């Protein structure tokens, strides 16, 4: 029974995520995108073993450690607990503990394999460019696997902090302190005494194991565990929803009003029906972190591509593509905002909806496009 609950939920989870994956990657995408990408990537990887690409020149070894360190901060330990478990399952403490133990082991093992794969991808450079030995690479790998586990454990404790400011402060502090220690220590240990990596790694494992075991036996973390579980379960689905105007987004859990036009202050003092819709959209856009992040993401990726890619004609193509995508994205957010049943009495064919949309798309896109355009001009000149 102890393990069958885990097995059932694990199977259910795989089925669920597979469904999400299939809804995005159909056979056509798999055939024309995935397989060619895999073939091209595999070919390049094979070449790297015999010939190191020229673009690696100038990258210090620390850069690879930064990559590994960032990966260590990815992901969380899940519990597979569900809200309905409070009805009956919580009374059977041993079942909950067994479930949490199994999921912890599963996720730590999974992420360890992740670190191994990442090291495997970087292996041609580690061996042939940075001239590390097998033993050194093994020690580094062990260190980062244990660091990954330690961070996963700490993240669970960070999740328990209620105050957003406090949580943010401790997260940044840990990120910076642990990063600074890792880069200086790993570099130093590789030069001086490699086995220190093993020793510190073992300490990290021990710390993780003690802390995580303690938490596993606690039932008081149930609500938090379920909250995190729901968030992580829907992680990939949410990414799909971002681009679907018809799907209702998950409810916001934030408790405080925004600082943007606080205390219900109006944007337009003299308003009419159209301005009311414009004000609605502007407030929704600027108060929703997810939307702001998406806008920043689209613009920053484009800017990075404009800087990195050399031919001017490709830069221009990317810029025009960016204009189309950004305006399309604003239209999607607008349509999603207008689809809320709160304003069900503003009909779809109401002219003010269309007029407000034109105004909004220009109002939001023009300044952002101008900034990226200015960067493009500076790069070209």
């Amino acid at each position: 029974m102890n393990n069958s609950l885990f097995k059932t939920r694990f199977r259910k989870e795989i089925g669920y995520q597979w469904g999400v994956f299939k809804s995005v990657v159909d056979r056509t995408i798999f055939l024309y995108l995935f397989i060619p990408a895999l073939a091209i990537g595999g070919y390049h990887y094979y070449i790297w073993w015999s010939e190191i690409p020229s673009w690696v020149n100038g990258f210090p070894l620390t850069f690879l450690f930064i990559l590994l360190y960032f990966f260590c901060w990815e992901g969380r330990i899940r519990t597979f607990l569900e809200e309905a478990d409070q009805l009956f399952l919580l009374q059977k403490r041993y079942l909950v503990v067994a479930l949490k133990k199994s999921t912890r082991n599963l996720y730590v093992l999974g992420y360890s394999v992740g670190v191994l794969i990442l090291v495997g991808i970087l292996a041609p450079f580690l061996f042939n460019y940075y001239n590390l030995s097998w033993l050194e690479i093994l020690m580094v790998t062990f260190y980062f696997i244990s660091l990954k586990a330690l961070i996963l454990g700490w993240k669970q404790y960070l999740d328990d902090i209620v105050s957003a400011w406090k949580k943010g402060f401790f997260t940044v502090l840990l990120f910076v302190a642990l990063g600074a220690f890792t880069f200086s220590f790993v570099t130093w240990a590789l030069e001086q005494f490699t086995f220190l990596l093993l020793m510190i790694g073992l300490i990290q494992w021990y710390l993780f194991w003690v802390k995580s075991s303690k938490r596993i036996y606690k039932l008081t973390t149930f609500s938090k565990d379920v909250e995190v579980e729901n968030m992580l379960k829907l992680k990939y689905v949410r990414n799909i929803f971002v681009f679907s105007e018809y799907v209702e987004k998950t409810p916001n859990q934030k408790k405080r009003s925004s600082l943007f036009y606080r205390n219900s202050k109006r944007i337009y003092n003299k308003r009419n029906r159209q301005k009311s819709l414009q004000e609605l959209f502007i407030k929704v856009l600027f108060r929703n972190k997810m939307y702001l992040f998406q806008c920043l993401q689209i613009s920053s990726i484009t800017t990075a591509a404009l800087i990195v890619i050399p031919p001017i004609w490709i830069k221009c193509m990317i810029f025009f593509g960016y204009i189309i995508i950004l305006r399309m994205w604003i239209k999607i957010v607008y349509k999603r905002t207008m689809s809320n049943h709160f304003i069900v009495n503003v009909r779809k064919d109401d002219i003010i909806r269309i007029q407000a949309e034109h105004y909004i798309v220009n109002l939001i896109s023009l300044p952002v496009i101008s900034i990226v355009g200015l960067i493009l001009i500076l790069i070209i000149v």
Partner: protein
Amino acid sequence: MEQTLLEVSIQDSGYEQNNKIIEDLSFSISRGEIVGLIGPNGAGKSTTIKTILGLLESTNSKIDFINNHTYAYIPERPVFYDELTLWEHLDLAAGVMGIEDSQFNERAMKLVNLFHMEKAIHKLPSTFSKGMQQKVMLITAFLIKPDIYIIDEPFVGLDPMAMQDFLTLIDNEKERGAGILMCTHVLDTAEKVCDRFLLVASGRLKAEGNLDYIRAEAKLPEAALLQCFNQIVQGESSNE
């Protein structure tokens, strides 16, 4: 001034083309009339409301808000914008319905005070309790003073005081000449409030009329609405 505010004529309607939830359902709502839309779970009440609101694609129906009469919809599950405060929701509703600022401020404050929501006006309704959220929905609807109210389960989550305030406001709106379509399971309250009933079961209109007519249909001359309801619905299912 015309008496009929809304004419509903649904041939069939549903969420998918080949799966019709309701069929042959026609009725109208007149000025100063409260019509109770009642029926068991899954009878098609919500589908009827969604059809009236024009939210369903798969429908053969004619919904006529005669002379473009305005309406307010109060859903069973309150809906909000996560990013807007209570006051901003009221301001938005007033804005899109073209209500002047002077009228808006006065009406809004009066309703906010009536429902004891003064301390929450600059807070986000998405964080309120179910009862408070329902109050925000009611305030929004009464604020815009529409010609027609379409209300889905209005009593869920309301405390006794708010319920009383709601019933008083409904009465005032009826006096003003508004038409009200109220979908509810709380039959003892509906019996006292509604002038007419639409009893829907299995996607069809089984009975329509005032309490006396419903009693006659159920052949229970002295019975309460609940008993008549059970009699008609059970009679239908045993006939089927």
